[in-house]
């Protein structure tokens, strides 16, 4: 055993995949995985399933907070930029409205609006990538050939080996017990 460790790589399970053939089965199975107390697990579906968040015991997305921060930055940033450029650094008087006068504000509204939207959009997309930790091109589930159907018409539950409750035999039996159509232990070479 010690020799094998030193000289060659050993194969260890990284994730167990349970496959389901319809959305309802995956949803009910997810409820059972949640109740069994697993923490490092996930469901993989071709489209979001209504009620899955609750079935997995997940909290609401925090994305809105990121977006509102970006929106306020865009709004105030646009005002500051225009006021500094046209009112302080190089005073441009148009329509007899001196810099800083309330009369200059209406003409700033369109650009303040546009930059609010622009930064919110970047906040929404990049914030979503950040919360999801994407891009991540390498993940243990991709080692399974059957997993390719997760983006087409199959529903998967994955339980990672890093889960404290993970045990190859017990977890496998548990997943078979909650009516998975197919259970696969994905293994990977480790140093």
């Amino acid at each position, binding site marked *: 055993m010690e020799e094998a460790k030193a000289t060659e790589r050993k194969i260890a399970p990284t994730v167990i995949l349970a496959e389901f*053939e*319809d*959305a*309802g*089965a995956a949803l*009910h199975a*997810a409820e059972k995985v949640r109740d069994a107390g697993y923490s490092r697990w*996930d*469901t993989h*579906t*071709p*489209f*979001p*399933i*209504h009620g*899955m*968040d609750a079935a*997995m015991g*997940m909290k609401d*997305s925090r*994305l809105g907070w990121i*977006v509102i921060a970006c929106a306020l930055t865009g709004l105030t940033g646009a005002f500051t930029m225009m006021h500094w*450029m*046209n009112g302080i650094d*190089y005073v*441009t008087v*148009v*329509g007899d409205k001196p810099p800083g006068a309330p009369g200059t504000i209406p*003409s*700033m509204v*369109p*650009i303040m*609006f*546009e*930059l609010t939207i*622009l930064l*919110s*959009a*970047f906040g*929404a*997309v990049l914030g*979503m*990538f950040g*919360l*999801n930790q*994407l*891009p*991540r*091109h*390498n*993940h243990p*589930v991709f080692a399974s050939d059957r997993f*390719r159907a*997760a*983006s*087409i*018409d199959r529903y998967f539950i994955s339980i990672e080996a890093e889960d404290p409750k993970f045990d190859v035999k017990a977890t496998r039996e548990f997943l078979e017990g909650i*009516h*998975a*159509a197919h259970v696969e232990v994905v293994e990977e070479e480790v140093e």
Partner: protein
Amino acid sequence: MAYYEPIIELGEAPLVQKGSTLAEVTDDIAGVTERPAPRGWWIVFGLALMFVGIFTVCVGYLFWRGVGVWGNTSPVFWAWDITNFVWWVGIGHAGTLISAILFIFRQKWRTAINRFAEAMTIFAVICALIFPGIHVGRPWLMYYVFPLPNQMTLWPNFKSPLLWDVFAVGTYFTVSLLFWYVGLIPDLATLRDRSMTKGRQMVYGFFALGWRGSNRHWRNYERAYLILAAISTPLVLSVHSVVSMDFATSVIPGWHTTIFPPYFVAGAIFSGFAMVETVLLIARTVFKLHRVVLMRHLELMNKFILFTSLLVGYAYSMEFFIAWYSGNRYEMAHFLHNRPAGPYWWAWVWMMVPNTLIPQLYWSKKMRTSIPVMFVVSIFVNIGMWFERFVIIVLSLNRDFLPSSWGYYRPTIIDVGTFTGTIGIFFAAFLLFMRWLPMVAMAEVKGTMPQADPHHGHRGKHAPHSEPIAAKGTLATEGAE
């Protein structure tokens, strides 16, 4: 996006052909990108590339000689360039309406056409942005419109509607692109997972960002999608409003009108739906998308066309009424004489007939469900809306306050080549999109199908799934229930 359950009692039908399985829908859409292109694709693509070539020559000549190669001259300094810009930006609006506003209103039928319409938005806005870029005379100084430090230590004048336009259209393009890409991610993952060659797997895999359909991801993804839709809704209404302010804030009769912002937005959606329909009808026939793009979708789009046609017709009538009611002789001269009876009366007729009269055919169900009729009507609307912008721009400028400065504008062959060239760019980009990307949002369509309902086939039953593969036979027979 939750599943869609038609209310049979109200005569509603499923959004996807009855009995379709998830795999069939995937095959229909993803298959287009995997099979060799049909002969028709190559013919149209070759034709489009020819126009791209014409565009390149015309713009090259423009850069070499200057804007004098166009017909623009005193008093008509804005002509086809700005007409084309407004026309193209307007076309983009239907895409955002379908992807954002209909999403907010939970109009689930949009899933069949939203990807398509969003792609149209992006390509139309690219074509639009070309014109302000090349009409400035010295295009290499175009960066003056951005708030960048430059050698003259000047900043842009933020009180100018032309600058608002830069921000509005720039933001519009960027947000549309982000929205489109976010929508594409799950479908790119599908293409990656179906790929048979290493090359496809690498390219689609790269852009799919390692998407694995995780519900922990879907949670944030759906929220991002909702937020993008929510912010795109006021955005799309703002863009053509700001475009209309390029005109409305001036004092030229025909431009100096408070009705412009809503009128432009209605016109934009009108022309955009017509363009979506033109392109969609071609794609539906060439790539056989009848399972997903149903007559129902087309009919709903025709109702939009009819509705926005009425809005546009209302705006036209209101302009006439206000010109008379204002008692302003210049306004009256423009609206009551120069438009219908001036030297460009034919342009006015081309605006009025296709935009306000021809869509009235759609009051008849027979007309709005006939493919040939809707194809012809959509082409007429495209032409009519181009003439609307021509009428607004050229007819307001050719006869202003002083008769001594009146003139007549004629386009040159370079004007024509540049404009038709952008149509070539649009179609070339569109054809590449249809060939290489899923042209229907697969994940979203699947989300509206009966299979997406976790309680489908189990309603009212409390019994848990006693058989492991309960759904095996169900998938195929579900639609028949």
